């Protein structure tokens, strides 16, 4: 095959807007369903997208989401220019959250965002600089024989 077919999607995630949060995740789900991918793959992509979106809304006043779909994998990149994560190791712990009380009152900020993103993706990398922003890269393998397993 000369060039692999690739679906590239780009979304603006608006900050402080809980009503529209989840829109990018919804659109990605729609695309994946049209490709007829297995429900478990779609579910995992939906969860990591949604958690990532919510994180950007809560902590970073929004950002950008880039999604690349091939017949082998789904790559998701979430980029924001928010406050950055001081201690990534701590942020990865289940139940740890820096979300303000007002956000927690809405049922968010349970400290499961990043842990769930790691749990439901096959590969996750975080780059973050305090004061500059955070980039999260995630990959979900579509073909079970390819490397990387769900943890």
């Amino acid at each position, binding site marked *: 095959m000369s060039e692999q*077919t*690739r*679906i590239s*999607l780009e979304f603006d995630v608006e900050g402080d807007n809980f009503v529209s949060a*989840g829109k990018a*995740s*919804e659109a990605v*789900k*729609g*695309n994946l*369903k*049209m*490709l*007829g*991918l297995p*429900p*478990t793959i*779609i*579910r995992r992509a*939906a*969860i990591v997208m*949604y*958690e990532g979106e919510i994180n950007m809304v809560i902590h970073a006043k929004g950002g950008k989401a880039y999604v690349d*779909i*091939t*017949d082998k994998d789904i790559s998701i990149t979430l980029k924001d220019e928010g406050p950055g994560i001081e201690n990534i190791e701590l942020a990865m712990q289940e139940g740890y959250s820096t979300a303000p009380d007002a956000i927690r009152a809405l049922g968010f900020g349970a400290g499961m965002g990043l842990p*769930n993103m790691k749990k*439901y993706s096959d590969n996750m990398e975080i780059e973050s600089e305090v004061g500059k922003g955070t980039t999260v890269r995630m990959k979900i393998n579509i073909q079970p024989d390819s490397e990387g397993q769900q943890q």
Partner: protein
Amino acid sequence: MQKNDQIHTVKLDKDKCMGCVSCMKRCPTEAIRVRNGKARIHYERCISCGECVRVCPHQAKKVIYDDFSIIEDPRFKYKIALPAPSLYGQFENLDNLNYLIEGLLKIGFDDVYEVARGAELVSEATRTLFDSGKLKKPVISTACPAVVQLILLRFHDLKDNLLPVQAPVDISAKLAREEAAKKTGLKPEEIGIFFISPCPAKIHALHSGLGVSKPTVDGVLSASDIYFRLLPAMKQVEEPRDLSQIGIFGLSWAASGGEAATLLKNKYLAADGMENVLNILKELENGKLNDLEFIELNACIGGCVGGVLNIENPFVARAKLQTRRKYLPVTKNSISQTDKNLDYFVWECEPDVTNVMQLDEDINVAMALLERINKIEKILPMLDCGCCGAPSCRAFAEDVALGEAKITDCHRINVEDLL
């Protein structure tokens, strides 16, 4: 009745259709397009919810149900009416449910089996299944067939959460037939079982056999049709006999939250109305609401009382049911009164998911199509105005990519910009 999942329970009256986009915009599965000035239903996507019937300002959408004359068919030597729980909410001052039963006997039925009885048994069977610990949580109710069809169409991942229990109407139909055969000595096929339905979704489910290996009823009548026959008959009843055999639990199934309440769980959610149902399903898909045990979803606002074939406003009907409850015991039916075990209540066969969302079985073909759809979508105004005859710009992009519409059908883009 033969199993038939191709049956169309909602149809368009072409002469009445004005080509407005009301139905198209409301359809939860984007199953409607307006072509050549008339609405067209794509039945492979239709879940028979009845939203289009409800919103059509010109009464151009019709629900297809059996004509009342079906009960006169000579095949049937003994005819049994199965009233839905919501039917009790349609009448003024019905302090005594027996008036309704007597009315049904007056208009031509030999017997009545209240579906609320089956509902009480289904509640008990569900509680038992919960206790067995075998259900995948959160368990999603399967009482509303429009919701079940919606999940099978759009939310494949949630299929395993569906409660694998037959609908109260199927349980009622099976028990009614057995009881009548025993009582009369007639063959089972000589007994005519007729459900009085509040909605097209249940009509479809009964024809297609949702969770049952073959249809359990012989015909499905409409609550609206029966209402006008029943009303004068009920007025003639002077002293009704004590015939009704239902409790609060059975009657509760008529409205949203009723089924959930009978399961005696604390962690449950009940949502009604198509938009709310869709929002809950999307949340579940995003991995949320996992701490709940049971989720009851009803496509119609208010639950079954909101069914498009009912007469009364759903909120008024619900209020009437509430006042009726006070005369009733909690429940009147239990599985131990029957000679059945739990297997009798669980699904005889699992319904299949439908792959209408998938563009092509070959992922490479699907990807090429999807790429085109996304490209087309980018040049559209994203107004979702519906003027092109598709419910959204996204749906229009799909139609164009699949060759079912032309890009020039969009009235809001400047065609010259495309050149």
